[in-house]
């Protein structure tokens, strides 16, 4: 009942979850063999940023438009091409509609 069978293979979430539990048990056992002696509340549990003075919370958190900076910098040409049709003007939406209907009529008529 919980097994999804299609023509080529089988997907069973129960087997996957059991495997996950086994692996998690192994990982927790390995972790439990580690060092347990540290003192909470002292400098051992404070934030450490390579020795500099830790800035307050608003400046520590990276804003959303800076995440994945390298990805956007590498694809700058692609994104500038993509942003140009995405105006907010409703006349452009209608232009796309008319163009795609004309293209579809051509495709259907020419391939029959």
């Amino acid at each position, binding site marked *: 009942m919980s097994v999804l069978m299609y023509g080529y293979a089988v997907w069973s*979430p129960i087997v996957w979850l059991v495997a996950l539990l086994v692996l998690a048990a192994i990982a927790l056992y390995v972790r439990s063999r580690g060092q347990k002696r540290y003192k909470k509340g002292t400098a051992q549990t404070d934030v450490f940023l390579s020795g500099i003075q830790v800035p307050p*919370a608003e400046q520590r958190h990276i804003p959303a438009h800076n995440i994945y900076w390298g990805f956007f910098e590498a694809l700058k040409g692609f994104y500038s091409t993509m942003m140009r049709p995405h105006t907010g003007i409703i006349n452009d*939406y209608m232009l796309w509609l008319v163009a795609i209907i004309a293209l579809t009529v051509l495709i259907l008529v020419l391939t029959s």
Partner: protein
Amino acid sequence: MEYLTVHSPILIVAIPLLAAFIIPLLSRLGSKVRDTFNVSLLGFVTFLVAILAIDIYANGARIYTLGASVPELARPEGYMVPVRIMFQVDGISIFMGLTITVVALAALVYSLQFVKNETGQDRFYSLFMLLYVGMIGLVFTGDMFNLFVFLEILSIAGAGLASYRVNLADAVEGGFKYIVISAVSALLVLFAIGILYGQYNLLSIAALANTMQFNTLDMIALAMLAIAFVMKLAGVPLHMWAPDTYAVAPAGITPMIYMSSAASMYALYRVTFTLYGGQFDTMPIGWVVIILGVLSMFIGVMMAIYQTDIKRLMAYHAISQSGYMLLGVGVGLAVLTDPVALANYGRDAMNGGIFHIINNALYKGMLFLTAEAIFFRIGTRDLNKMGGLAHNMKWTTIFFIIGALAISGIPPFNGFASKLLIYESVFRFNPLLSIIAMFVSLVTLASFTKVFYSAFTGPEMPAYREVREVPKSMIIGMGIMVACIIFFSIFPGLVVDTIVAPATDALIDQASYINGVMGAAP
């Protein structure tokens, strides 16, 4: 119970329609009476949909003719064609009906607390019921003109609800774009219906499918119908209205407007598979749907990772996931007339695409609700200003994690099951499409990691120190969807065999749709 089952198609449409007109009167008695009335009414309609579903999976498609002496009487005496208004509920119709009803119930429970401080609440619930009627009528109908009427009902109600918060400037702009898009698409649909009526003098879908010759006028009508529905379901390159409208709608309405797009997808499949499929070569229109699907997937997700407004990001993801559905079912459409390929991978592709519809409705709806939960507590949708919300909003964080893992196709969630079906079967059709689909899934995970980092993890911001968890009715609304997601994740085989496979059979088997109406004994 027999009476309820036989008359359930019309009761499911008529009861919320009547409620939409009674709610403003009932609101005079107080808000608690109105809330109880709404939730119990929608609960009763859910019960009716459930018993109709059990009947259809046991006995096959059910028709309901308005105005006949017996509801199953499709053609009046002495007539060769059906002339009355008819509801025809087969496997795919009841599948969409179940999806829409579950999402509507969760959205209604969520909205009870969300609109508590706004004015004009009775009109909100009235329009909500009308939106539900429009969607259910669209998926249950059996003739083309009712398709147009219910399409317009759901457009008007959806636009009115999307611009509900008229004190915000961008809400009205989003609603205006939605109603212009919907009006133009619906008028093009009516033009195509006029072309078909002028040729064949018939409006019923089964009768039209029986007498369709595929001449040039029919091709023009098919192009107008298909592209108008693609514009309503926000497929690229006609998608640009969707982020504007989804972002500004109030909570609970965004999942409903997204389900209107799914209902338009149902209408696209109904037109291409049942009205035009079968005898004619569907390879060109199938390839058009596949190309639109691949474009939607790719451009949707690449635009999504760039956004900094949380609901606009999720709206682009909704566009991208619609591309998966178009790809899966488009592969089935392209090989519809080739029995070997259909049995080999076409059926699995369609199973994957249709299973993805209900999966996406559940987890995308829930992600929209979590985004609006954040907006409810903080008052902004800008990701640059958020941070460290997991310290205070624990339930929202857990629901967001489940939704984000499900949408990226991470095992063991239901997104993985439907995406696996799509990957494996589309690979046998054309390997390049499957590789693009896997890349898109990867970028989806990347962009939801971005949202999770920006909004939930991180140190606790001093500005948000007093933010508490959202009220209980909103958690219950999200919890309904999470319960369904977990159920679908653990029992995918049960869901595919019970709900999805009859829908695929109903789409592929055009002859049984026609025989349900034309061969019905008086």
